[in-house]
């Protein structure tokens, strides 16, 4: 009965279960969009995973989250954005369009005032650890490697940027507790 399944079904399921972000430039994304209701139900009923479909990407979430990786990525992006801004660069434009060289990031991370946060993180503390980290991000389609020592961010970074916005909003609202992960994101930024 293989004809009753959408095209590329096997790869769609495999990629999403591997924790990958399927991006809008991937043909699989269009298929998921076309069969959104089907896949939403499929992942919910089969694995109790929630499928998040956005205009740029689709991915799965579950309560049994990979908290460490998510935290590492959040720290990585937080320090990177802070340093880019300090450097006078438009960090949203950089995340959207620029290529990042490992060496440039190494410099930022070596000289950052958040060095203590970096040092205490196993995935980010030094260059070899960060290379390992980049490989993890590339596997999940959060970055796209454009050479041995360079990469670009995919739109998946928006998940973490939106998380930062949530923190800021709750801070300005006087609320100290943020549960960014438990809420479905709203990507309303430019």
């Amino acid at each position, binding site marked *: 009965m293989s004809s009753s399944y959408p095209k590329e079904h096997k790869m769609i399921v495999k990629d999403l279960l*591997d924790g990958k972000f399927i991006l809008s430039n991937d043909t699989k994304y269009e298929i998921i969009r076309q069969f959104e209701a089907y896949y939403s139900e499929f992942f919910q009923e089969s694995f109790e995973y929630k499928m998040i479909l956005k205009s740029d990407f689709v*991915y799965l979430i579950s309560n049994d989250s990979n908290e460490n990786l998510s935290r590492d990525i959040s720290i990585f992006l*937080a320090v990177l954005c802070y340093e880019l801004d300090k450097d006078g660069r438009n960090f949203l434009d950089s995340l959207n369009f620029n290529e990042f060289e490992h060496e440039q990031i190494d410099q930022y991370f070596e000289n950052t005032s958040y060095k203590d946060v970096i040092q205490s993180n196993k995935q980010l503390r030094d260059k070899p650890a960060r290379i390992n980290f980049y490989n993890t991000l590339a596997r999940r389609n959060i970055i796209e490697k454009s050479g041995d020592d360079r990469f670009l961010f995919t739109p998946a970074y928006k998940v973490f940027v939106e998380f930062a916005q949530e*923190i800021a909003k709750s801070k300005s609202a006087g609320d100290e507790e*943020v549960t960014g992960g438990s809420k479905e994101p709203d990507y309303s930024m430019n």
Partner: protein
Amino acid sequence: MSNIQAEPKTILRFLVQHFDAIAELLQEQRKEGVIKVEFLNKVCAVTDIRLQLTEYRIISSVKSDYEIRKVYEDFLSFIIGDQRITLPETIEKYHDSITKLFLQMQYTAPEDTAILGERITELQEEVKHLTENVDRNTNTLLKETRELKANVERIDYLEKVKKACFWIDYYIVPLNKILDINKFDSVASKLYEVSFFANEKRLNFPDEPTRLKYEKLYEYLILVNDELLRHSKILTHELMPLIERIKTESLILSGFIQFLKKPNKYDTPLLLKDKRVYIYNKNVYFNTLEYFEQFYNQEDVVYEDNAAASEKWVFNMDRYKATLRKKLPLENFFEWCSKELDYEFKEVESEKFFSLCTLLFEDDIKIEVDEAGKRQRVHTMEATYMVPRIKIEKI
């Protein structure tokens, strides 16, 4: 009517001479609303200019304090390039004043040309005030926004968000409404209405001087419309995106900074965990690769030519000459060369073959070419040669 006795040039010279002190007074007024008498005394302690300040009507007294007169304040702010942004509500008042003058102009009897002329001029003046205000507001907003973007004052990111929101809500959006020609109650649409009326009158009004005044008003309004459109474009295409950007970026940075204070305190976004790991899973390969990459020290790769890698062959002429002599006389010299080399080497390069051929030119050898012109093949690594049969013997 101004009752200043001094010559205009004298006043201007005074302004140039004491510009720093006057600018200081302006700053104080901006900050405090008035110039406190103590502050004026402090400024005048260096050079006492109090007399000229009052004589040239630059300052006026407000109870026990002072203030710089509006005309000077505007002039000084303009030349310093530090103009205050006017609230759009203030600009909006021009809608009423222009409407009123327009109505009066419309209902003036055609024969009352004198008052009609005055009203046309007055209307034009009012429009001029309006455009000056709009121009000042957009330019000042643009300047302030760029400064905010560059964060010249190093203000906190959340403060930046607040400031950006404030400008959007109270200045940019209302100003844009004023300049929106599609809104029936906007100043821009009112000006369009006036220009439509003036266009009609400049063509068919019976009195010629009044017709010319309408003509002048119409042409001026065309320019004003273009100018307002330009400002509207700056607001919507440049200022709004820039300030929205500041707002978004500042919000994100503020959130990230808050997060970095206590990274373990927050619930970060949910991501799916890798499930069971099989040894043949692709991820195992990547993980292993990553693990090894950490300990892998890449050595420099040096490229060497193959020829340099193997031992260079040197033609030992004496040895081959001696071997040849022992074999003389020879019926086929090239056959001997080929066999000799084949015996000695697995693979024979052309270079070796040609080296051996040089023995033909030895003085003590007699060469005889086969008269029938028979040829034979000699194979080397690089090529196959068709060579003649050559007989050699001792002289």
